[in-house]
């Protein structure tokens, strides 16, 4: 068995393509991810801060205070062109033509309607398909401020004090007392995303070399000679399995280490608040626990990938079979992302989903160590069963000589 392992490992280390998937990709994925996150968040903030949108307003004089608020807002600039606008249709046409970014239409009876304590309907014309949907929110916010002020003044004139107004408008105020700390809160949100990254990488660490170790042997014509050596099929499978496991574990180690290192870098040198809040309490022990949980997963993937690969007649056929396997792995991870799916003594027995849920709990800082033990046990049992199946598969003539 050791000879098979030694040889497979030597071949693996000389395969540039596999090395890219097993080593380079896990190293690159986290810095890449954080860089993208940093870029997007800073870019989005910068754009939102800096971009100024042209607008036109019809009948603005009927709500002068509101019109002034829009005029002095840093994100808006009044259209100073030659065109004049009198209707919503004209505003729509101008937005479509790109003459203005937004049009605000106030009805001509706006002042009268408001004075009569009736509701006045204002229209904001803009292109919602563009990434500028905050335009509407900003105008709405300004209109609300103006509307609140009008309401307060009106109610005061009716003899309703500000205190009474608050009680009338909102008779019951529900106040949230959140027991979740920032880590738990953010962990819930992005904790599900981490297994989404980690687990497929562990799978990748097993599948790419597996194709070469099974179908590759058939395609090269080396399988038959290997089967004719006086080592048992169990030894042969174990040799190959241990190679895949080593490759998968290497990917896991690199991935978890890379995650740890880049999280520290992100926290120390880059002002990434999301990463900081979610991961600052993550300890080395937590990372170790994530790593330990990924080990039996690596064993499951190694057995599965080897069984599939030895069934395939060619490299191409094996690659075709590996694609559904990847899909099959993504699905249980997605289940873990679903709301209300939590780590319980039942979900602890669902392969892959259990580990994804446990990783989420670890990141949230709310993991139950008894359940982690249960997951480890359940995953080891599944991995063992799959390995036994793999040995059986290697003994079947109709699989080996398809």
């Amino acid at each position: 068995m050791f000879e098979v392992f030694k040889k497979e490992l030597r071949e693996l280390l000389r395969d540039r393509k596999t090395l890219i998937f097993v080593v380079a990709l896990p190293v690159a994925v986290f810095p890449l991810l954080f860089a993208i996150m940093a870029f997007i968040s800073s870019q989005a903030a910068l754009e939102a801060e800096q971009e100024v949108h042209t607008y036109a307003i019809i009948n603005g004089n009927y709500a002068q205070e509101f019109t002034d608020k829009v005029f002095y807002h840093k994100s808006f600039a009044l259209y100073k062109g030659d065109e004049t606008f009198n209707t919503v249709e004209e505003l729509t046409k101008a937005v479509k033509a790109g003459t203005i970014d937004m049009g605000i239409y106030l009805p001509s009876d706006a002042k009268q309607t408001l004075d009569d304590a009736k509701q006045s309907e204002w229209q904001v014309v803009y292109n919602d398909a563009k990434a500028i949907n905050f335009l509407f929110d900003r105008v709405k916010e300004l209109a609300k401020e103006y509307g609140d002020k009008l309401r307060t003044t009106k109610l005061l004139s009716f003899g309703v004090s500000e205190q009474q107004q608050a009680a009338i408008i909102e008779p019951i105020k529900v106040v949230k007392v959140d027991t979740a700390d920032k880590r738990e809160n953010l962990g819930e949100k992005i904790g599900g995303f981490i297994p989404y990254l980690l687990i497929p990488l562990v799978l990748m660490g097993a599948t790419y070399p597996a194709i070469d170790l099974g179908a590759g042997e058939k395609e090269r014509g080396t399988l038959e000679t290997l089967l004719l050596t006086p080592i048992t099929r169990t030894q042969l499978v174990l040799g190959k399995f241990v190679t895949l496991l080593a490759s998968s574990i290497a990917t896991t180690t690199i991935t978890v280490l890379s995650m740890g290192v880049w999280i520290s870098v992100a926290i120390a040198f880059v002002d990434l608040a999301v990463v900081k809040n979610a991961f600052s309490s993550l300890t080395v022990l937590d990372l170790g626990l994530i790593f330990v949980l990924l080990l039996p997963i690596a064993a499951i993937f190694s057995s599965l990938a080897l069984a599939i690969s030895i069934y395939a007649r060619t490299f191409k056929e094996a690659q075709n079979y590996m694609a559904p396997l990847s899909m099959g792995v993504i699905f249980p991870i997605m289940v873990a992302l679903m709301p209300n799916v939590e780590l319980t003594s039942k979900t602890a027995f669902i392969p892959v989903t259990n580990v994804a849920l446990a990783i989420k709990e670890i990141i949230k800082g709310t993991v139950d160590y008894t359940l982690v033990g249960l997951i480890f046990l359940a995953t080891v049992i599944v991995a063992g069963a799959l390995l036994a199946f793999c040995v059986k598969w290697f003994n079947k003539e109709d699989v080996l000589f398809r």
Partner: protein
Amino acid sequence: MIEVAGLKKKFKLTKDHKKNKTDNIDPREDKEFFHSVRDVSFQCNKGEVLGLLGPNGAGKTTTLRMISTALKPDEGSITISGHDIVKKPLVGRKSIGFLSGSTGLYGRLTVKENVEYFARLHGMSKKAVAARCDELFTLLDMHNFIDKRAENLSTGMKQKANIARAVVHHPDVVILDEPTTGLDIMTTQTVINFIRGLKEQGTPVIFSTHHLDEVALLCDRVAVINQGISCFDGTLDEFKQTGQSEELNQAFMNILTESRNV
């Protein structure tokens, strides 16, 4: 000595095969199975070279795969020097060297690493491996390319490496399945010389081929299989007599025609 008696092997028909069945039914096919080998027997003694002949699809490769223990026969026995290798395949694997025209090498390993790997799998010690490899590399004139990766070798070099791999563990019997198919003249000559060398050492060799000139050149015995059944097993002279001439083609055709009539 190797003795093969009453070998039978059937394979389950695939759904596609059943679907694409034509009216021209192969007598070896029934509803569920394809009886690839129906009754094959022959023997090969020490120092003899046995040529296994038969048309395409006759069952030669399946027979050789059973002898090499890659496939398990449904019925029949295979004994090498008195050991029943059907019952004890691991014993058989230690005594058999196998090479076919389509046997490959591990491309990312060097020639030396390839040969050493198989020697180690046969349980040879490091010292024994080193000595045997050196002996084979000299014998086959391979020293100038043993450190090259197999993926960078010419066809001739690859076949030499394959020969070394097949015999590195001093097998009692060597089985060759169409070893010269697709090879150029020079490489074919290397294979022929290798078979001659084995014969001189007293190692029984069974090789399947379509080249009757190779049979005339090397074989002491000939076995012919047609549609999974042995239809001839005898010496080269006896084989020639069935054709009533020195032309082996005639003998081969006569045997096949006779077997069809039966």
